[in-house]
């Protein structure tokens, strides 16, 4: 039997194929990473629908409002009151007027016409529909003044 003798010199490992693969992986992850949908909140489980298609032309000015429930790690609802989530902050629909006024003020300050801003509502499938209507009504109130609305749903693949 031939036994490899261990020389003192370390054997040269060809790194080229590994680097190739690693670059491929990086390119793959870079392409599929979507930094645009950062406003989507995981606590909201959207209803599914097959007609829900992303808009053909991307909206320039969109205000996303996430309306959902506080959930634990298993996804169980721990508080039956729906909240509007703004990152770590949350507010009920009833108390959302101040925040909505701030958002509206922000768009006016940067010189955007409120008629060009679409309020995208991401509401949980289990939220009461009256609350969504209330939220739309609040967005239209004096001092807020949003005019365009869109309801989000997850695209169901047939």
């Amino acid at each position, binding site marked *: 039997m031939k036994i490899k003798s261990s020389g003192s010199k370390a054997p040269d490992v060809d790194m080229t194929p590994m680097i190739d693969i690693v670059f491929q992986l990086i390119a793959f992850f870079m392409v599929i*990473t979507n930094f645009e949908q950062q406003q989507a909140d995981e606590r909201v489980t959207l209803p599914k629908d097959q007609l*829900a298609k992303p808009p053909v032309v991307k909206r320039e000015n969109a205000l996303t409002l996430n309306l959902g429930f506080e959930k634990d790690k298993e996804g169980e609802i721990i508080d039956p009151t729906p909240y509007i989530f703004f990152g770590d902050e949350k507010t009920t629909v009833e108390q959302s007027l101040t925040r909505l006024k701030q958002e509206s003020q922000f768009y006016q300050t940067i010189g955007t016409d409120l008629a060009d801003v679409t309020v995208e509502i991401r509401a949980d499938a289990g939220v009461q529909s009256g609350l969504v209507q209330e939220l739309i009504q609040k967005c239209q109130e004096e001092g807020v003044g949003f005019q365009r609305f869109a309801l989000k749903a997850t695209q169901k693949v047939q």
Partner: protein
Amino acid sequence: MKVRTRNPDGDKIEMQMSSMIDVVFQLLIFFMLTLKIIEPEGDFDINMPLGTPAAASVTDADLPPFKVRMEADANGNLAMLYFNGNPMGNDGQEFQRLNREIFLAVDSLKAIGPSNVDKQEVEIEPDYRLHYRYIIAAISACSGKMEGGQMTRYISRIKFAPINDQR
């Protein structure tokens, strides 16, 4: 100017790969960790009249809106669906029936004049406690139909009725 001379022995110059591989692995791990698998999201435009929705809205629609009424049971599930006052049931096929009714209504509108279809509105009137998923199902049934990967659009102007405040 200093000109680099070739290695006099003609040997290949060894490149230090380890630092590059370190950085590349860091990048790989960063992208792997930041990856969030999100299902593609779409949306439905809602054509809400300006001003308070409770007030009678004046739009350019000459035709009365199609009315979709949704009643909820105590748990917020759909108890009954009506299209212009006609019950569509609640046996799991109600939204298909609504879709069919909308198709027939749009078809008869087209017979009068194709421009009428663009002006026609649908007014959705849900009970306050009805779960939001049924709203999306109703909007979808009014918006159109998916056939063979192609969407046939029925009505694009959809609005909500004033809030039905019976909690």
